[in-house]
């Protein structure tokens, strides 16, 4: 398991050829081998959701996958959310609604919400609350995260 293997990760449309041990977690590879440090590590137990990314457009805990399992899959991280200078509606809604304080959990919440709203733009408030309870935040008491995601959902629907 110590022997490194060559794989290519595709993150936000860019290919990263890297050499990793088969036991290396996806989040470690994204951060340390590909240099994309926007994805954060909060627990490595798959509980907190700070490391949530989109794997083939589905929200996933990147601490619970091995990097080798992600080869050939389309990975999306927080770095790919904005369109150049133009922030994603969720990013703008988090700023406008004070949806973050320390910001550590924010990339995970943004990717979780992006994945869900792309699949279910008409998700009910109740179901959205269930989805958002997948991830942990220690600063906001969730009040303004919920507000921000609901605001972004409304904006995304109106387009």
């Amino acid at each position, binding site marked *: 398991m110590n022997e490194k293997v060559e794989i290519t990760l595709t993150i936000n449309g860019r290919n990263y050829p890297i050499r990793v041990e088969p036991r290396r977690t996806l989040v470690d590879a994204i951060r340390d081998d590909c240099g994309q440090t926007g994805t*954060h590590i909060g627990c490595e137990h798959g509980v907190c959701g700070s490391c949530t990314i989109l794997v083939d457009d589905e929200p996933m805990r990147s601490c619970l996958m091995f990097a080798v399992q992600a080869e050939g899959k389309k990975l999306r991280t927080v770095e790919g959310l904005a369109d150049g200078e133009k922030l994603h509606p969720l990013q703008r809604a988090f700023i406008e609604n004070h949806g973050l304080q320390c910001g550590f959990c924010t990339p995970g919440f943004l990717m979780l919400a992006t994945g869900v709203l792309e699949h279910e733009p008409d998700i009910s408030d109740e179901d959205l609350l269930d989805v958002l309870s997948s991830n942990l935040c220690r600063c906001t*008491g*969730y009040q*303004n995260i*919920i507000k921000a995601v609901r605001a972004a959902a409304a904006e995304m629907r109106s387009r």
Partner: protein
Amino acid sequence: MIVEGRVKTPGFDAARAAAKKFVTLDIRSHRQNALPMEPRGAHAAFDAVTGRVTLTLSTQMPHLMRTAIADLIGMPESELRVIAPDVGGGFGQKMSLAPEFVLLTFLARKLRTSIAWSEDRRENLMACFHSRDQYVTIEGAFDGNGKLLALSTDVLANVGAYSCFPTTCAVEPLMAMAEMPGPYDVRDYACVARGVVTNTCPMAPYRGVSRPVVTFSLERLMDKAAAAFALDPVEMRRRNLIRNFPYTSATGLIFDEASYIETMDVAVKALNVPAFRARQSRERNNGRFLGLGLATFSERTGYGTPAFAARGMEITPGWETVELAMDPSGFVEARIGASPHGQGLRTTLAQIIADELGTVPDRVKVIHGDTDRTPYGFGTFASRSLVIAGGASLIAARKLRAKLVKIAGHLLEASADDIALKDGVATVAGTDRALPIATVARAAYHQVHRFGGDIGPGLAESGTYDPPGTFSNACHAAIVEVDIETGAVAIEKFVVAEDAGRLINPMIVDGQIHGGVAQGIANALLEEIVYDETGNILTTSLADYLPPTAREIPPIEIHHLETLTEASITKAKGLGEGGTIGAPAAVVNAINDALSPFGVSIDEFPATPQRIRAALKAAERSA
């Protein structure tokens, strides 16, 4: 035993002897972890050219870390640069010095290299600092009308295996001793507070520091006393809350103007108590158990150096300095010793400075968390930064403003007193003669000859503030439903009526309250560090130690009152910890109210389903 404090007012014995009724409780607050989402980490880099080490680490106190590490290694402080970048939450846990920070710095110098360490969640739960582990016995001695005459407490804190720097392990027991009378008017008070060393993880500050336990103890006492006197819990508190200000407490603390009664009235009104009582009684007949709980409390914030000196502390972190400079382009840089990590302090300080200088917050950049670029300061903790760094910002901005209007007066051929600064423009009041502030700034650097030698070049001022300390206050009120079959608790409504003086940025204030209340609810219901009988820790993952999710935290309704105090030059009081201080008591009082038909008393937190079921079973057996 490693810490012992004792206090007893001279009149205590006589006051107690005159009492008509005594109410006693044994309180237990279980061990908890502040749990910032980012565990600790650090990176030490040796620079072979300068011989300096740059230590980047997750801390709330970069300057104090530099001093402590340099002391321990025996190196000049000037050879160590400490950077606290965007820190992923702290809540007190990142105040304390970690041995790893010292070791990394030592190794970087010794090996002339770069070296990093990061803690994982398991390590954070096992070996980063814990808090709240206290046993409290509290006795209230009342007159015949429910007025508290004498209060006595015995506080025992399990401070763990070692002390901590800079607060020391005395922080919990001695804070309990100093603050126990809380917002209640009681002239006589006795307390024994002890800290004992055990084979558990050390305790250090966590949001609220001891006051969640103090408030829990007092508020359980008030509810028990209300039952003993057959009074409404609101009336019980009304008879005992401080009403006249300034008020000097039995422990010598001076309470500035506050609104204890008024916030309680607002919270009670928001819950519509009569309608709730009717519904509560109806639902009981349907086998549903609802309860209402209150917590009124004071939150001491913005302590100056005398407050720390009075506690006998060697380090008295009561002041902050802000260095303010307007550059020749009219942009402002504020370098601060405080070290925010999610509190929005850069925003609020920019507002204070921009308001004073007549510019917009976007033109004010606040620099923090780098010992090379900021004046010495203590950092961000103890609900202090807006009061102290905000006060220092205002002092520095007033000085800078005075110089700006003097120069503008020269340039506009008017008296400095007649210059108004607004929206980036200096105007002679009542005229259309005006200059952009940026033009005034340019002249301050490039055209000093125009001021006739009585004004020196440049626009840089410094302000330091060491306040007397102030008390913000709040009333938290909760309605809960307890499932008596499972012991599960659902919070239906949570109301905060708070008074932290002037609100500089209401959105940030509400954000602090939301987060604080969520941690308080977690403390009340969910979170507990558990050891087995031989001292092995059992809660080493987030599947065992249970922070709340969006599902467990109800919508939080906030009402603001603004009592403007002379104890803070911005009139703002601190409030970062208040949410966590009040919520455990409000929630557990509500649980007890819901369970009142069963004659149980839950006097500990977290009030887990197991504890609630055990209490109900014990009550059944004894019935």
